């Protein structure tokens, strides 16, 4: 397993090995799937669309529907205008969504296709909508693409009509449907009326009913996206994912915004609840207080199994930062924090976190890959890995337990239905982390040291 990875770390400036990120369009596709009755459309070669649908379907174990402009060599030379116009006609004719959300690819970006012009020229049936976002694969990562598509939807649709709707606009960050459900649950408990964009719950975790529907019940509606412009306030969860759309909504529709970390663990969920509290002026109900208290109780009860354990956390930037905070709340040492998404903010946030908790000898790096993370571990090991599926090869090579959290998880089931955010998500995470560490103790201990009670 990964036998060719040397311990010695050599400087690399051109070669990416075992990446911790993928390209913008797949993030854009995921965001568009969180819009009700929406067909995500990939403007490029049909391979892009196939790869992205494959990637998302494997993570969610649910159909990820999207169409392609199916570029040929001719379109690559003369432009993809006729392809996308034909596609728009065919999609409305055959699949009849309310909206088509087009994202570009490295191909259409390199040849400089003018999507605004193409969409203006396209025949769009009455009452239907086509929007687009530029998502060049050679800039940023899937996280950037996700933010770009949300921003694109706002750009085309959101309006400030001058009449406030009394609602909170929520950008949930790059999270699972299970997380989005938990965020909504907490807003409802706090008496907050909201518009959440995107909302993949009810789409990418649709129930089995025996009948297939291409556009399931979930997703943010076009009217809701329009009405985002009338919100009192917007909250972006995950600065590196959600600040872009929140900032854009402020610019376009004068909706003030606030950015918070992903609500993972106690303090970060506290911040989310406090923001909802400030917004609604409603008292925090006992149901939330109870969940919080339960989570704190769990951390106190179990501290000896997690405290001072060294953990490496990898994945998307906002997820890694928030997971690291929770690991610190559990008394763990976040020895390595790694994301593949480029951007300086990540490293600044990591430094601030390390300082706040007074931890030393930890590394946090952006624009890094799993190969390098593995080399760090080879040089100075950890007790636990937290991240997506691709880390399981390191876990096996180095015999380290792995807790799956974040994207993508293509080798396990159920994860997308359940939260890691909120106090409830914290309990789930704590259980997974403790089980991983304690199973390891049971597995490794001498027979005479086996503990019946732990």
């Amino acid at each position, binding site marked *: 397993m*990964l*036998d*060719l990875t040397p311990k010695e770390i*050599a400087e*690399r*400036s*051109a*070669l*990416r090995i*075992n*990446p911790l*990120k*993928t*390209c913008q*369009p*797949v993030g854009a596709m995921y965001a568009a799937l969180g819009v009700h009755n929406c067909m995500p459309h990939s403007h*490029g*070669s*049909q*391979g*892009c669309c*196939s*790869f*992205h649908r*494959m*990637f998302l*379907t*494997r993570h969610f174990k*649910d*159909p*990820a529907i999207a*169409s*392609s*402009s*199916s*570029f*040929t060599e*001719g379109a*690559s030379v003369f432009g993809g205008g006729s*392809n996308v116009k*034909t*596609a*728009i006609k065919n999609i409305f004719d*055959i*699949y009849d969504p309310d909206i088509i959300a087009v994202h570009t690819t*490295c*191909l259409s970006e*390199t*040849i400089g296709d003018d999507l605004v012009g193409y969409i203006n020229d396209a025949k769009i049936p009455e009452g239907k909508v086509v929007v687009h976002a530029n998502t*060049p*694969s*050679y*800039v940023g*990562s899937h996280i950037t693409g996700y933010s770009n598509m949300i921003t694109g939807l706002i750009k085309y649709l959101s309006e400030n009509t001058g009449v406030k709707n009394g609602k909170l606009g929520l950008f949930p960050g790059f999270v699972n449907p299970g997380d989005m459900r938990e965020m909504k649950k907490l807003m409802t408990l706090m008496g907050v009326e909201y518009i959440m964009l995107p909302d993949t719950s009810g789409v990418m975790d649709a129930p*089995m*009913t*025996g009948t297939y529907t*291409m556009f399931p019940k979930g997703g943010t509606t076009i009217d809701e996206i329009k009405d985002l412009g009338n919100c009192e306030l917007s909250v972006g969860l995950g600065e590196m994912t959600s600040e872009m759309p929140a900032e854009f909504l402020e610019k376009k529709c004068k909706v003030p915004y606030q950015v918070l970390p992903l609500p993972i663990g106690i303090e970060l969920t506290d911040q989310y609840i406090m923001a909802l509290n400030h917004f609604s002026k409603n008292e925090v109900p006992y149901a939330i207080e109870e969940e919080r208290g339960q989570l704190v109780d769990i951390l106190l009860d179990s501290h000896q199994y997690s405290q001072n354990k060294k953990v490496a956390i990898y994945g998307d930037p906002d997820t890694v930062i928030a997971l690291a905070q929770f690991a610190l709340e559990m008394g763990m040492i976040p020895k390595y924090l790694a994301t593949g998404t480029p951007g300086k903010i990540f490293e600044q946030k990591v430094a601030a976190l390390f300082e706040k908790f007074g931890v030393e000898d930890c590394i946090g790096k952006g624009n890094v890959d799993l190969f390098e993370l593995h080399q760090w571990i080879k040089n100075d090991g950890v007790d636990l890995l937290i991240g997506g599926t*691709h880390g399981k*090869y390191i876990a096996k090579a180095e015999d380290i337990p792995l807790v799956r959290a974040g994207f993508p998880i293509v080798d396990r089931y159920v994860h997308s239905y359940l939260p890691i955010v909120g106090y409830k998500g914290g309990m789930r995470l704590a259980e997974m982390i403790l089980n991983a560490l304690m199973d390891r103790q049971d597995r490794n201990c001498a027979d005479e040291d086996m503990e019946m009670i732990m």
Partner: protein
Amino acid sequence: MNSRDKVLDKYSSKIYKNRKEHIIQFEEGKPNLIAADTRAIPGILTNRGCCYAGCKGVVIGPLKDVATIVHGPIGCSYYTWGTRRSKSKGDENTKDFSDYCFSTDMQETDIVFGGEKKLKKAIKEVVEIFNPACIMICSTCPVGLIGDDIHAVAAEAEELYGIKVLAFSCEGYKGVSQSGGHHIANNGLMKHIIGTGDAEPVKYSINLLGEYNIGGDGWEIERILKRIGYNIVSVMTGDGSVEEMKNAHTADLNLLQCHRSINYIAEMLKTKYGTAWLKVNFIGLNGIKKSLRDVAAFFNDPDLTARTEAVIADEEDEIKEAMAAFKTKLEGKTAAVYVGGSRTHHFINLLKSLGVEVVLAGYEFAHRDDYEGRQVLPLKMDADSKNIESIVVEKDPAKFKTFHTDEQLEELKKAGLPIESYDGLWAELSPNATVTDDFNHFETEEFVKLLKPDIFFSGIKDKYVVQKAGIPSRQIHSYDYGGPYAGFKGALNFARDVTLAVNTPAWDLVQAPWKREPTLEGSLGGTE
């Protein structure tokens, strides 16, 4: 109106005109002409991938001793990393790169100013860290558009580091599907790898072409072939290596499993080195038995023939009882099979032997010969197929050798051996089956509603679509992370997996009780 017409009828006239050529109701004894390998319609939700997927994803990717650098933005390398299930195993002499994904991760500045410098640097870094014996470079869409000369970079690196460095211009926009990428990969391997080794020929030696070792299929086939007494020179390309492939020209015979993806190499090996090829199918008991007997007939050695029969009897004996038990659970069921460019054909005999009839079939990226048989070649070239390089090889007099004379080969052909021939899907299909080329989402949904197959075999993109409609669905690209399905034991694995899928207890739980029974109870007013 038959189901074909019912579905086509729902299209607008323009799409109707295109799609009516790609959908047929199969009739035995009729010519059954079908249009294939033409452009997919934008927006229709084709299941196809791209040229890069065919080259790097299918043919090049499985080569274990190669450090394959994908030159482009990060996504393309990421999506072909560990996703295909072409299993491989290194040993003390073979570095296995299959756990690794290499990319130049092109950024905006590389697109603007050119990416050759970064590619050169990436090659240098691969050499310094891993010291591979061979590097292959696969290009992605923007590379072709900005004009990076990856072939010049490869030639320079080969000179500089003294190792094999190959470049494949397999930009995603080339051709109409994965198929163009297969061809480009075939050309590169033929030009630069095959024939460069100096191993001595061995007796009864074969290459296994178009076998990608999905779920360990190749290993199972190899086990059986070795048991009979054949020497395997190379497998292209499942668990394959450049080290073995360079001596592929020394083999007596090429066995061709996936015709679509690799028939070009088989043809070129025949022309350049004289090696005859035989179409085989190691999926399904009838397929395996016929293939093993065909190979034995080719070599015509009484010992081999006797061992072939002994191995068939032994292997079949081992699974017979269990197969029969599974058959009782599957008999009478109907199936849809939508896969690739050869696989649909391969699985039909296996399904038949389990009593399952295929009512709906199709390919993603097949050409007409994959449906109608190789006798339809040569096909007329259209603008898209002309864009895919087709190379011409010449006889290599020093290495040219034949096991049989042309006359003997003709004799064997007359005796029914599929030498340099391929029957295609039609040979296996039952009358009235509906066939869809380049199947799309709409047609899948509609045909499934009309034909109501009991089991659906396809890939990841439509698996859950069909499952949500209440039909058990198994992936035949990835075997749903199981397998092997090839060989005798593989057939049993398949039968077991399908039986499990059809009989999953949760199928009986789909309907909630309150959907089945009235939940409101009451009595008529005024009766008390």
